């Protein structure tokens, strides 16, 4: 890579990080389309660069969530058994799956993220949950300090088995596509296990690092984590995510996030077209 290309890669990655943070999706799902369409990077190298970027952004964000007691460490550690197993499977499958299918799946996950953003406008607490037996023996119940409500909110978990299975799928897609699959992780904890939204989001973030590390080790061994590409991309996405989260806390209305929905729809359609072999240029 020439210095000019380095700078361009860094700049695009910063942009992907910012938009990802503002839109509430990870940087990976935006940086892979950018690398493959704008720079013509091989999808496996793009995935290798994305997966290490994800470790950086999720671990960085996890620090504050863990300190503020929003993350449920036990829920996270237990479900990481499923996500890391899935991620190893996904990374193995990535070597044999046709790239076209990878593009179509990326488009599908991005579409799901858009749907989640549109439907998730009000953050409410789940109704009182009676913990299931598995949840009780794993001691998954806890409490977190809710700043907006100004009190400690106790919560419990249920349907642990179904949550675990969903985490296997989330881990598989993460390892296959080089993304965090935070959308699926949040869906499993918030929708299925009925943990509060803030706990689900924080715990998902905590788990993404370990999930990504499971497949990143495999990509590294294959030579798909190339420093010449991954260095500017990881630094850029990390810088962009930090910047984006700063901007986000200044925004009064979280619905501003919806401004970014059209961008994600365009990127999803671009990926779908690429996967189906249609030569349609929406971007670059």
């Amino acid at each position: 890579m020439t210095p000019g290309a380095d700078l361009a890669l860094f700049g695009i990655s910063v942009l992907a990080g910012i938009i990802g943070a503002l839109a509430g999706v990870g940087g990976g799902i935006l940086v892979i389309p950018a690398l493959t369409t704008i720079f013509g990077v091989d999808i496996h190298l793009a995935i290798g660069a994305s997966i290490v970027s994800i470790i950086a952004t999720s671990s960085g964000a996890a620090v504050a969530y863990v300190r503020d007691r929003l993350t449920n460490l036990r829920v996270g550690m237990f479900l990481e058994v499923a996500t890391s197993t899935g991620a190893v499977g996904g990374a193995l499958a990535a070597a044999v799956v046709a790239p076209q299918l990878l593009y179509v799946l990326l488009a599908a996950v991005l579409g799901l993220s858009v749907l989640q953003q549109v439907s998730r406008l009000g953050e409410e607490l789940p109704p009182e949950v009676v913990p299931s037996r598995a949840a009780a023996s794993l001691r998954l119940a806890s409490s977190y300090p809710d700043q907006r409500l100004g009190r400690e909110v106790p919560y419990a978990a249920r349907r642990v088995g179904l949550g675990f299975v969903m985490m296997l799928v989330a881990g598989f897609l993460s390892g296959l596509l080089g993304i965090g699959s935070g959308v699926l992780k949040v869906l499993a904890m918030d929708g299925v296990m009925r943990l509060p939204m803030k706990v689900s989001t924080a715990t998902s973030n905590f788990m993404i690092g370990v999930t990504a590390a499971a497949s990143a080790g495999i990509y590294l061994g294959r030579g798909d984590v190339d420093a010449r590409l991954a260095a500017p991309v990881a630094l850029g996405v990390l810088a962009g995510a930090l910047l984006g989260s700063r901007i986000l806390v200044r925004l009064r209305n979280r619905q501003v996030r919806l401004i970014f929905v059209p961008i994600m729809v365009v990127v999803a359609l671009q990926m779908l077209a690429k996967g189906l072999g249609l030569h349609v240029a929406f971007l670059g």
Partner: protein
Amino acid sequence: MSGPATTPHADPSAQAQTDELRLVVARVLLVGVALSAALVLAGLLASLAVGWNGSLVGAAPGGDPTDVGALAEGLRNLRPQAIAQLGLLTLILTPMTRVAASLVLFAIERDRTYVVVSAIVLAILLTGLLVIR
């Protein structure tokens, strides 16, 4: 405010142990990300000066640091690509270190269930890094 079934930490010493785990986990993640970002940045900046396969100590251009031997050789010659690659490796090792640290703390607490859980996760991560290609 809360029913007895969902009261989180009836035992105050359990709360203190969880708080210690939180501090250790947060510290490991912060130090790991900061260290790897510094190494990757150093490699990237050095590459702008001497090129990815160049050397800060003036050695002849070398190959890609794809395995541990080549990485060590590249680091000895201060090659930008090797410095950045070490940073990326540090990044991948950060969540693994976090899991290992949790395992130790759970062991000190004699929390058997979560010692087993952390050990399984650590085994999967190490298998991915060292065994599977």
